[in-house]
């Protein structure tokens, strides 16, 4: 099918884009990489009278180091640029690994981090990474800019905290403590397909006990989420210096808390099974890398 007619506005600055969105009274939508939006336009499940193309905004595709050891990633950074960035590989190896699972080369050449976060698919890698890495999502809007914590950004499937006249400008990832181990496990039917389920983990060790742990689940809830119960279970087991017991308890908690859906690619029950198995694998890998 083909998209319905629309008016096309090419913005060359963030201010121009925001002004065009604000002037449309909530009717206009942003067109970035288009890799999720255009399929929906072609099928006419999304329709808007005006699209504001932000691809021509200069300087919005930079990956810059921040002083706390983190990165500031411009909203128009393409997936392929993230996948091949030495800075990402060096500072956030878990994100580097996750990028290998993002769609296919032709999609990665066009798709953007700002677009993926704004689209907010609960089974997509970048929203999950934003939640895992405590990302701050920097926006611009008619009422000014905001910094939104990833935990507050994703509200429901394909629904974010963005106002109709706001766009994502950049994503800031705070630096990780030295010695942080990571794990990323995803199950998909084929490489590049949407995840049936996935789990990402970060672990910092203090000798033989776990100092800090973060676990994020993809495709297992309405939005990407931190698995707080699983994290608590891991820490509790770790206090007793029983790391394997901690991993088992965390994996069971991830399964218990999962609220997955049934669809063509997997039943809810199968996804709950994956929550447990992938949590165990991700934590085991993260602890090994953290030197446990």
């Amino acid at each position, binding site marked *: 099918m083909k998209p319905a*007619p*629309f008016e096309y506005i090419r913005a060359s600055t963030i201010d121009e884009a925001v002004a065009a969105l604000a002037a449309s009274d909530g009717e206009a939508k942003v067109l970035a990489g288009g890799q999720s939006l255009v399929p929906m336009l072609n099928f006419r499940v999304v329709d808007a009278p005006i699209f504001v193309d932000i691809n021509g905004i200069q300087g919005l595709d930079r990956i810059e180091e921040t002083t706390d050891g983190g990165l500031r990633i411009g909203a128009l950074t393409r997936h392929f640029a993230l996948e091949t960035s030495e800075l990402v590989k060096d500072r956030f190896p878990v994100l580097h690994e996750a990028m290998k699972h993002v769609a296919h*080369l*032709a999609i990665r050449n*066009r798709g953007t981090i700002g677009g993926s976060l704004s689209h907010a698919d609960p089974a997509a890698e970048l929203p999950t990474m934003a939640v895992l890495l405590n990302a701050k999502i920097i926006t611009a809007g008619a009422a000014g800019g905001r910094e939104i914590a990833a935990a507050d950004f994703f509200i429901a499937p394909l629904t974010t905290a963005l106002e109709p006249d706001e766009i994502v400008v950049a994503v800031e990832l705070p630096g990780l403590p030295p010695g942080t181990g990571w794990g990323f496990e995803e199950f998909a039917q084929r*490489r590049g397909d949407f995840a049936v389920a996935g789990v990402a983990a970060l672990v910092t060790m203090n000798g033989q006990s776990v100092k800090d742990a973060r676990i994020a689940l993809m495709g297992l809830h309405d939005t990407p989420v931190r698995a707080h119960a699983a994290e608590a279970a891991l820490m509790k087991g770790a206090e007793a210096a029983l790391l394997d017991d901690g991993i088992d308890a965390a994996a069971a908690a991830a399964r218990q808390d999962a609220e997955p859906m049934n669809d063509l690619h997997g039943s809810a029950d199968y996804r709950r099974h994956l929550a447990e198995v992938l949590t165990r694998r991700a934590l085991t890998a993260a602890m090994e890398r953290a030197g446990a």
Partner: protein
Amino acid sequence: MTAKISITVSVNGENHAAEVEPRLLLADFLRENLDLTGTHVGCEHGICGACTVLMNGDSVRSCLTFAVQADGAKIETVESLGDIDALGPLQEAFREKHALQCGFCTPGMLMTATDMLRKYKLETDDDIRDGLSGNICRCTGYQNIVAAVRSAVDKRDAK
């Protein structure tokens, strides 16, 4: 009816000026406006990969790109790789390894493989399979396509 927009696009080294509706997909622009029917339209939602072309050197789905977004860009389609009398090296590898049957997916396979060959080492056949996983073929069972890309990788690396 929305206003048409003037664009100039370089396609296979030739400049084309046109007035297009914003909603016109790049795939339809290539096929309908320029008669370059080598670019095939399958699923029209970015799954099958048949419409893959290169935009400024990067492979893109031409069904997920609007013609207006190609304004000022350099597009390369399967027609740029060679012709029936003088196949390009990748096309020659596909012919030699019998990597096509009906041929519908072949233009997308060729353009995807062109980009993969430039960007990735493709050390293992699994790497090739992962790279081609966004292009659907309903005839060959993929074995011969992987063999053709393998042959092209080997030729690339022998240089």
